[in-house]
């Protein structure tokens, strides 16, 4: 019997029991719809994360003092608690011979301070850093200019402020050339940073609300004290996103050497933006995994449903099978007939499920805030999986049908 003939027979059998076939398909349909939505949900979240990574500079590594992992002595330095990083560490890392995969380095120290103008005040994050900060953090200046090496060398009393800060302090007035006072030190505003929008993942710092000041000015004239030589973090920009892990290793090795510690006793932590954001979106991930689990279970249940119905169908059609064998059907022909029937159930369930999944992916973003990305690969894959489930769970019933002896089959009522 040709494939086309077998397919026609299978379709006929499925269509002759519409309600039963429909209910059987429902299991697979729900599973496939759930898979498509889950994948769409996951990819939507992933897309959000990667666009945030790009906003922040995808080649960025952040060195923080202290270590969140236990050292060999069992003492945890405490992430961010120690003051072991210095400006000279940053200078060393910037060396092309030590770390060829590092493009630029910017040490930074920040603290919350109140900025005062003649008419108002505003509490924001004051960041002391070097001119390389701009490229390392993938920012730009929309008005005025950024810090220069000359500003740094002369402890210049200048500041570049974020767009939110500018609006809060000066309203609609042009902030360039205005004066803000921090800790009794008057600073001249020389530039305004571009707007990047509030970041969901780094909610602790609004990237549009900060005042960037030369690191020497901050150390010597604003913060003072122990902050004179130590820095809170060192931002490292790798030459490319592919060089990120090489840059990570070079930075780790150099800092281990400078601090005279072994890798196990490291008094610093290096994180990539990606790892920071991954942590931030781990809740999304857990939810996605949970949904994927439910989808997988639903598919399994759907498959068992197919097997159940196929077994019923074989039992019910013992006479038909016997007749077909009497008329010359080989075991293979019978097995193929039932396998095709099971895969038709799977395929129909898969296509309908994909349709509902895609409809859900279009409707759902209007109801919840999460984006859902429709993935053609996942949709095609889901349909293939549905057919596969039909075949896998159809093998046993089909084999049982094929093994029936024609005489037993003909006798059965």
């Amino acid at each position: 019997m040709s494939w086309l003939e077998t397919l026609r027979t299978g379709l006929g059998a499925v269509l002759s029991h519409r309600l039963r076939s429909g209910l059987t398909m429902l299991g697979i349909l729900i599973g496939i719809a759930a898979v498509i939505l889950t994948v769409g949900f996951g990819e939507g979240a992933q897309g959000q994360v990667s666009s945030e990574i790009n906003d922040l500079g995808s080649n960025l590594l952040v060195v923080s003092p202290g270590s969140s992992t236990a050292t060999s002595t069992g003492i945890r330095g405490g992430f961010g608690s120690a003051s072991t990083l210095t400006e000279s560490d940053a200078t060393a890392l910037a060396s092309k011979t030590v770390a060829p995969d590092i493009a630029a380095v910017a040490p930074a120290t920040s603290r919350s301070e109140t900025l005062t103008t003649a008419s108002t005040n505003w509490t924001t994050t004051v960041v002391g850093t070097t001119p390389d900060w701009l490229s390392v953090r993938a920012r730009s200046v929309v008005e005025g200019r950024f810090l220069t090496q000359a500003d740094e060398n002369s402890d210049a009393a200048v500041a570049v402020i974020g767009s939110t800060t500018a609006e809060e302090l000066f309203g609609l007035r042009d902030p360039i050339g205005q004066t803000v006072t921090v800790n009794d030190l008057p600073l001249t505003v020389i530039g305004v940073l571009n707007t990047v929008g509030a970041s969901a993942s780094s909610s602790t710092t609004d990237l549009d609300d900060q005042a960037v000041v030369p690191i020497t000015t901050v150390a010597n004239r604003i913060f003072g004290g122990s902050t004179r030589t130590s820095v809170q973090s060192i931002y490292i920009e790798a030459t490319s996103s592919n060089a990120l892990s090489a840059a990570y290793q070079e930075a780790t090795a150099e800092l281990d050497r400078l601090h005279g510690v072994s890798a196990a006793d490291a008094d610093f932590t290096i994180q990539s933006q990606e790892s920071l954001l991954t942590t931030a979106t781990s809740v999304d991930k857990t939810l996605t995994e949970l949904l994927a689990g439910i989808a997988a279970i639903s598919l399994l249940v759907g498959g068992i449903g197919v097997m159940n119905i196929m077994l019923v169908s074989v039992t019910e059609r013992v006479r038909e099978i016997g007749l077909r064998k009497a008329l010359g059907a080989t075991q293979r022909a019978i097995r193929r007939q039932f396998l095709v029937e099971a895969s038709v159930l799977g395929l129909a369930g898969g296509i309908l499920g994909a349709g509902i999944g895609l409809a859900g992916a279009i409707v759902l973003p209007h109801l919840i805030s999460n984006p859902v990305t429709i993935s053609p690969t996942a949709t095609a894959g889901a349909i293939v999986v549905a057919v596969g489930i039909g075949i896998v769970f159809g093998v046993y019933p089909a084999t049982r049908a094929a093994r029936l002896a024609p005489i037993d089959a003909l006798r059965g009522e």
Partner: protein
Amino acid sequence: MTADALPVFDFPVIALHDVTKTYQTGSLSVQAVRGVTLSITPGEYVAIMGPSGSGKSTLMHILGCLDPLTTGSYLLAGQDVSRMSDDELAEVRNRRIGFVFQQYNLLPSLQAWRNVELPLCYAGVRREERRARSIDALQRVGLGDRIMHRPGELSGGQQQRVAIARALVTNPALILADEPTGNLDSTATADVLALFDELHESGRTIVLITHEADVAHRARRTIRVRDGLIEADRDQAGALS
């Protein structure tokens, strides 16, 4: 129907030699056929009779290659089928035997001609040829106007005639009918038996299993089976063959 369309043999269509069949049910073994030797030549019209439990159904299953025999040998149209595998037997059934059952055994979802073409599907015949041969077979049994009807839309006699068309369509060496009139009223029975007479006259080899004496009487040769053995084997005139 022309005689030259029929398979021609110079050897028996059926040659059974000392055939036995034993069923094993748990520790209990039942010998349903206990040594049958039988020869049926081309063109014969044979009725196999016997009370229930006589082994005539088992014999029919063996003749139809539906059930393997335990010992002995069976040559069907000169071909030894006693040691064949399941799939080889399927092919033999497809090519050599046309079955007619008491329950008609038509597939209710298929139109008459689709039921008739089924054996040709398994024989790998092309679609256009299948259709032509199925319609031809239906016309031969007088159902040329019922080609697109489903079994549910046909009377019992008509359904059995569709089944006979299905048995004829492969042009088999043997037509094996198991109680073909068992479910039919007297009019339909007469129709079907007239059809068998016609097939016999055109040279077909027919083996008919029945427990009705008047049905058996239409055949030219009657074989009586009892307790798994051939009790009597007579031609119509009553002489021992």
